[in-house]
Structure formats: structure tokens, C-alpha cells
């Protein structure tokens, strides 16, 4: 099954990818952090390495993932995302840690 997922990006990643604050991406199969980030990096290859390490695919230390007013940062990357994200009602948020930068 293919679904359209809304993903909100922090400012510096919007600039790198030349997009607005939210992008819509196609995700095949189960909607998880991993499948969403794989799809983001596939659609916007210049973001490879900017969200997750190139090789290990570990989240960069100062980034967090929120959705539906919940902190999903430390959830398993293969855990299903909330239904509201899958249905497109809510975006998946990629957030720079509050330290700013």
C-alpha cells in the first residue's frame, strides 16, 4: 500500500532541500520512522547525512521526532507511526533540539 505522509522540516533542512516547511512524500508499506526517513532521503537526497548518519542510519544527536503532540524520538525506528500520521491528518515533525543553533 502506498500512502502520502506529511513531513515538517526544520528551517535549515528546508533551505538545503529548497522546499517549504512541509513536504509530502510517498511511503510504501508499513509507515515507520525508518520508512518515512528512507522516503524523505530518497525524494531529497541532499538531506542524506543531515538527519541520520550516512552509514549507521542513526539519528543525528541534536534532532528529535514528534507527531501528534508526542515525542517519538526514542521509539524504535520500526515501530508503526500514529494513525493520524498515516492518514495524513497530522504531519511527522523533524525538529532541531531546542538549543537552536
Amino acid at each position, binding site marked *: 500500500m502506498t500512502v502520502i505522509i506529511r513531513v515538517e522540516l*526544520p528551517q*535549515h533542512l528546508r533551505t538545503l532541500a529548497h522546499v517549504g516547511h512541509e513536504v509530502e512524500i510517498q511511503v510504501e508499506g508499513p509507515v515507520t520512522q525508518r520508512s518515512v526517513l528512507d522516503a524523505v532521503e530518497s*525524494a531529497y*537526497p541532499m538531506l542524506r547525512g*543531515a538527519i541520520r548518519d550516512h552509514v549507521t542510519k542513526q539519528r543525528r544527536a541534536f*534532532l528529535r521526532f514528534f507527531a501528534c503532540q508526542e515525542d517519538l524520538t526514542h521509539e524504535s525506528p520500526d515501530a508503526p507511526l500514529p494513525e493520524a500520521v498515516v492518514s495524513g491528518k497530522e504531519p511527522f515533525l523533524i525538529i532541531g533540539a531546542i538549543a537552536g543553533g
Partner: protein
Amino acid sequence: MSKVRVLVGTRKGAFILAADGKRDKWEVSGPHFAGWELYHLKGSPADPNRIYASQTSGWFGQVIQRSDDGGKTWHQPGTPPGETTGPGGMPKGESNKFVYDTAAAPLTTHQFYDGTQHPWEFKRVWHLEPSLTDPDTVYAGVEDAALFRSTDGGKNWKELPGLRGHGTGPKWQPGAGGMCLHTIILDPKDPNRIYIAISAAGAFRTDDGGKTWKPINKGLYSKYIPNPTAEIGHCVHHVAMNPKRPSVLFMQKHWDVMRSDNAGDEWTKISGNLPTDFGFVIDIHSHEPETIYVIPIKSDGEHYVHEGKLRVFRSKTGGNEWEALTKGLPQENCYVNVLRDAMAVDTLDKCGIYFGTTGGQVYMSPDAGDSWSPIVRDLPAVLSVEVQTLA
């Protein structure tokens, strides 16, 4: 008429300052890559319109940017302007991929500040050194220390693993800024000879194009390592070479200003009458290879200029005898630092000297240091300054 273009990297973006050969009226463009740290920008000697930039962030990692039109427009290599190459018409994104060659040189640990061993991890690119002859070849010095090279205009990067594989990695340790490879000098007379320097491991030289490396630290003395004259462990801050005389090197170490007349095989101290010999920058007059410049910093615990005075010190004798250059520079209540890559010289007849401060000023002298004026005063903290002299 000749022109100069000054490439300025700051904590919050890059700026390009341009003037004609008189160097009295400046056009300022920027910030480019606003909000990002620009550790270094440098133009290709073989094609001055080709400029490479290291854009980095603790949040989002490393990005390499390239301009093919002298800094007017930029792109991540692999994505020429107007060309779309990835799925969905998006650019390819491999140009920021710096992966250590662990097959050729397994990752070791390095020494942490307290002497314990610490994992080796890529953090950022400190310095980009374009080839003297090929615009598509460029070297990158990175933290944690290693040397990478791209031969396709920055699209793909491969480590030269012989350096990290030298075998002394567990003795290397970070300076205050991190364990960075910050200096890369290409020998114009011998394409197989490259010098690099690492804080804090020391200086190294290859004579075979980067396959093997030897430490060149004989004569250095550092109190902060158990054996002050050890082969490895010295916090070299910067090394400079005049391309007309490539076997003579000048070094600003953590403390001590040094020179070598035999390609780094031996060093002698030339601090002479400097008020303090701690500092970061060192550079050489383009036409007078015995005329050198440093900016003394008070101490390793007080990273600002000595006595609240911003003074460039010049030696016309290759060291030991230094004169303070102060005309046009603030001589009271000044507490800025000048970081290791933030001084450069042009090659005009009257050699211009340039440096940037952590207070955001970029100063230039059109007369080899006799007088100074600010080109800009209020940029973010300056990390690097490079100058291109354009025909």
C-alpha cells in the same frame, strides 16, 4: 586591472568581499548559507571561479558547497545549476559523505582530553585545499583527524588512509577546538609532497602522494605532553609556506613560533621578542619570503589579543626580530581572537594582508602591514579568511 576577492567563513554564514586592485572600495555579498558555520572556503588556483565551501552544523552535519561562478551561485556538488539528477528531479546527495576507509586503515581510538581512549568519529570539514592544477581535485582536512580527497569536483570523497593508518592515532588528542586536521599545504614543485597539521598530533609530510606519511616534529617542545619532545602529540596551530620557496615552513604552535628550512625535518624557535608566542595564525609576504606575520594571543587560557591591543607582528628577518604593526588597529579595550585559518595574503605588487577576528571584523592592509583598515566590522565571528588575486 587586477581584482581581489576575499572569502570569509563565519559562525553564521559566508561572506564574499570584492574590490579592484586599489583595495579601497569593497562590495560585500552574503550571508551565504545563513545560519550555518562556514569553517572554510577556498578557490581553485587552476580556475578561480571554482570555489569550495565547508558548511557545517552540530545539528545537521556536514555539507560541501561549490560555486562555479566566483561565488554568485552555489550548489552541492553532483547538482550542477539547472541540472536535476536524482529521483523526482532532486539533486544527488553524496557530496557530504565522509566515511573513513576502515578497510585500508581500521578505526582506532584516540586520546581524549583526560588521556583515556575515545572513539574516532567524523564531525566536520575544517579545511579545503583545491589542487594547484586541477579544479576538480580538492583535499579536505576533517575532525576527527583524517585527510580526504575528491577528484570529481567534490561529488565523492575518499580518505587517504595512510595518514590515519600511520599507527600513532591512539596518541593523537583533541585541542580545544577538537581533533582536527586543519592545515593542508601542497608543494608546487613536487606534486607528491603534501604537508598537513593536526591539533594535537603535530605536522606530517608525505613524499609519495599521500600513501605514506612521516611525522615532522623534531625540534618542537610541548609541556602539555609527558615527553615534551615526543615525536607525536604537539598542538600545531598553523603552518605557512611561500610557494616560491616550498622547503621553508613557518609554524605557529600552541606556544612557540617555529621555522624549518628543510621541509619540516627540523624546526627552530623564532619567537624572539614577541610579547607572547601563543597564537593561531601565521602567514608570509607573497614576494618577500623572509617577511612573516603573526598575531600574538595572550595565552592558552585567555584567547584574546595581548594587553587589549590588536597588533600584527611582522618579522622581515625570517623570525626572532619582530615589530608591532598597529596603525589603524584598535589599541585599547580589544579582546578578540584571530583563529588559525583567518589570515591570508594577496599577490598584488604591494602585498595585501588580511585577517578576520572573532569580533566579526575583517581588516586589510594594502601596504604589507604598515597600515590597516576594516573592510567590514560587524560580521559573525570569523572562522576563516582566504584571498584570491584575480587577473
